[in-house]
């Protein structure tokens, strides 16, 4: 029935995707640099040595400046050492980066795919939670042969995410409720649901009073690379990236989703079932986020806890935004933010810089790349525009 309803073109959504995808690569790179510099300054101004030297700034300004430089660079060097390469461990930190990236990429793809269909999926967090919960339960509660067990863990994780996302799609398609509000609310419902489950006999580890599940059976987890935490889930992330790329570019469903994303009214007139496309888009997006839950519970953590999703769902939004909602863009954005995450642990240990700095840098990057004119202004790149403007004012006067 609802397909017969007329669809008003949601204007804000229409240019959402265009806004995200526009803007040259240069601005992205510059945006990342500005964000890193601001992050570095934040590290510097709270550094003890910097504060001390500032006390005698006028006596020996050199001390102050070198302290600022040291504080900033030391942290970033530690970040690099913890995420890519260091002399002691060689490239093995990079394997950790890939591990941390895996759920970011999967969930980022979920957010990106929804974007392309004109839907703002803030709900990756909830979808990850439900996906991880279902996958985790199959993993620790069932006894199944090798391969089949892991397959079922993955399938149930995808289904969990798909249900949680699809439900939002269904409500939006049937009632016109805004998906941003719905997904935010569903995140919290999922959070409390998991919190509740973790305190039941069914999920809690026998004999434990802590909300932690039994360890997943060895048949239920991704095989991992010896000597690291990197597991086969990363291959799943690559496969999903290829799948989403195919879906968007070469499939009829992708054509429908993109059509609905840009102009639902025209899509409807062309025979696309907008309600079905909305539900499918959210369900697939949810499944992708669910895959992130699987990667967490059956790959990295191997147990289910109330905090299994961490802040992955929100990080995924920034990943999709930085990746400009293209599948491979999201993949590489996921790698970058994965490197931040992985490196931040080392940074905190060796320089005492709190992990929170990653959140700051990450959100600044997204803000800057979303506003190319601002980045251009910072680097004085929009001189040309200013010139034309003054030309118009002169002509107008």
């Amino acid at each position: 029935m609802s397909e017969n309803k007329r669809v008003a073109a949601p204007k804000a959504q229409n240019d959402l995707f265009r806004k995200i995808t526009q803007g040259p690569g240069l601005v992205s790179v510059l945006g990342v640099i500005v964000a890193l510099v601001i992050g570095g300054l934040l590290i510097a101004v709270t550094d003890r040595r910097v504060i001390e030297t500032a006390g005698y700034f006028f006596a020996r300004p050199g001390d102050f400046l070198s302290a600022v430089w040291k504080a900033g660079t030391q942290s970033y060097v530690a970040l690099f050492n913890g995420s890519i390469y260091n002399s002691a461990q060689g490239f093995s930190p990079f394997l950790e980066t890939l591990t941390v990236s895996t759920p970011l990429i999967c969930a980022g793809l979920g957010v990106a795919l929804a974007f392309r269909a004109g839907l703002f999926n803030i709900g990756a967090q909830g979808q990850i939670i439900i996906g991880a919960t279902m996958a985790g339960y199959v993993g620790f509660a069932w006894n199944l042969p090798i391969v089949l067990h892991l397959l079922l863990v993955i399938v149930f994780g995808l289904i969990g995410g798909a249900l949680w996302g699809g439900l939002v799609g269904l409500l939006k398609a049937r009632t016109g409720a805004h998906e941003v509000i719905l997904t935010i609310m569903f995140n919290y419902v999922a959070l409390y649901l998991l919190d509740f489950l973790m305190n039941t006999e069914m999920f809690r580890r026998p004999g434990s009073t802590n909300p932690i599940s039994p360890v997943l059976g060895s048949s239920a987890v991704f095989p991992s690379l010896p000597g690291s935490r990197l597991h086969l889930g990363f291959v799943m992330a690559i496969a999903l990236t290829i799948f989403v790329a195919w879906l968007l570019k070469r499939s009829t469903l992708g054509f429908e989703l993109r059509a609905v994303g840009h102009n639902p009214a025209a899509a409807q007139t062309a025979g696309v079932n907008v309600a079905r496309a909305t539900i499918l888009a959210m369900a697939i997006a949810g499944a992708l986020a669910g895959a992130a839950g699987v990667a967490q519970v059956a790959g990295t953590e191997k147990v289910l806890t109330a905090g299994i999703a961490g802040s992955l769902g929100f990080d995924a939004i920034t990943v999709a935004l930085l990746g400009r909602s293209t599948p491979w863009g999201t993949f590489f954005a996921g790698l970058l933010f994965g490197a931040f995450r992985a490196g931040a642990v080392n940074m905190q240990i060796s320089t005492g810089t709190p992990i929170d700095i990653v959140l700051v840098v990450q959100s600044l990057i997204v803000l800057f790349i979303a506003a190319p004119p601002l980045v251009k202004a910072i680097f004085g790149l929009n001189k040309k525009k200013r010139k034309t403007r003054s030309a118009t004012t002169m002509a107008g006067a």
Partner: protein
Amino acid sequence: MKLELRGISKAFGSFYANKGIDLVVEDRQIHCLLGENGAGKSTLMNVLYGLYQPTEGEILVDDKPVEFSGPGDAMAAGIGMVHQHFMLIPVFTVAENVALGAEATKGAGVLDLEVTRRRIREISDRYGFHVDPDALVEDLPVGVQQRVEIIKALVREAKVLILDEPTAVLTPQETDELLEIMRQLKANGTSIVFISHKLREVKAVSDVITVIRRGEVVGSVEPSTDTTELANLMVGRAVQLSLQKAAAVPGEATFQVRDLSVIDESGTTTLDSVSFDIHQGEILAVAGVQGNGQTELTEAILGTQMVTGGSVKLQGKELTGRSVKSVLRSGVGFVPEDRSVHGLIPEFSIEENMILDLYDRPPFAKGLSMKLGEVKRNAAKQIQDFDVRTDNPLNPASSLSGGNQQKVVMARELSRPLKLFIASQPTRGVDVGSIEFLHRRIVAERDAGTPVMIVSTELDEVMELADRIAVLYKGKINGIVPAGTPREVLGLMMAGVSAEEAMEQHHTEGEDQ
């Protein structure tokens, strides 16, 4: 008040919407701005009203140069404007809408709507508007909303009133009432800039007519100027008043609409028991003032509008209750009235727009997978066939001009074998050259034996294309008449007069003269 525009140009990027326009509106004068859709009339008025800054030129009020940085300045200078799309807030009352921006207060910024209500009643009584200050605007009929707009300008003591295409949404009767109001306003000392592309109205009420074409003034003439000459000035070359088309050879009536009704969400009947047939090889044109059920009729047939009763049969197959996809699959070609909203996805490439409703059918798709090579091949062929002017089929559709966009939609819909072709406003906002091309294509489809339904609010287009004409009035078919019915008769029918009465009136008038 005297208003003068001197050498006004307005450029958007490299495109000049207005170029070197000179215009003088004398005190107590109705000055008409005549021009085709897209000639640059509205842009000029937005410049005059301070919404756009002119690229060049100056505005003079009572011979003193003024500069408007926003509509506030224009209003302060005594200029009021009634926009083509009303600038009213639907959820506000009439009084709130009128007060907005010029609110009376009890001091400390506390609203005093009573003052506004009194002013509204005053003006309403003087001109016989019958407007209730406490009615919600969204509940008012279009004609009354327009009066609210005029009240808004008068409350602000406008000395010059700009009316932008005010009759587009009115019936001929309402139009006559508006023309009378304009004369009254003039008598009370208001100058009026009247923007229109309808010759009859322009000649009826203007003191001076300035004709604009492609953003430039092409002449200033007396209202007594001959209609054909005015039309020529407006269009720019001798207008070929009729398309050379062969007489229709109607076949079987394969498309039948019976008692089709639509009730919208607010409970208003927008389509009321509409019944008609279209024969193979025949064009039925649906005429009527905008908003009399045309949109609902075409959308009900397509399936994007829920039907509350009746049936639509194509070659014996019921279409109501089916999905849009299924209706299109049964051989319906559909050109929607607003191409940028319903016909195209502006961000998609021309290639993709060429298969917008064919994307999941062979040869463009096999299963879930699309054949991008076929998509490319198809686009190349259609671009050539329909002479779409573009240098790259991968450009977004938004890069095309209005006429070329319409060609894309038309090419797509005519590119498959059809059992029914429906086109709404097939040439709205299309340049003159393309109009003729598109009209020929429509007639060619008819000659191939397809039943064709054209919906148009332009009487000229209706008269040019139709083999039979159905007139819609308030959601009902107010008679179906043959091609060649005099336009005066059609006009009366569009105002709700029955076909017989309209004919009779026309004859008596003819005898009187």
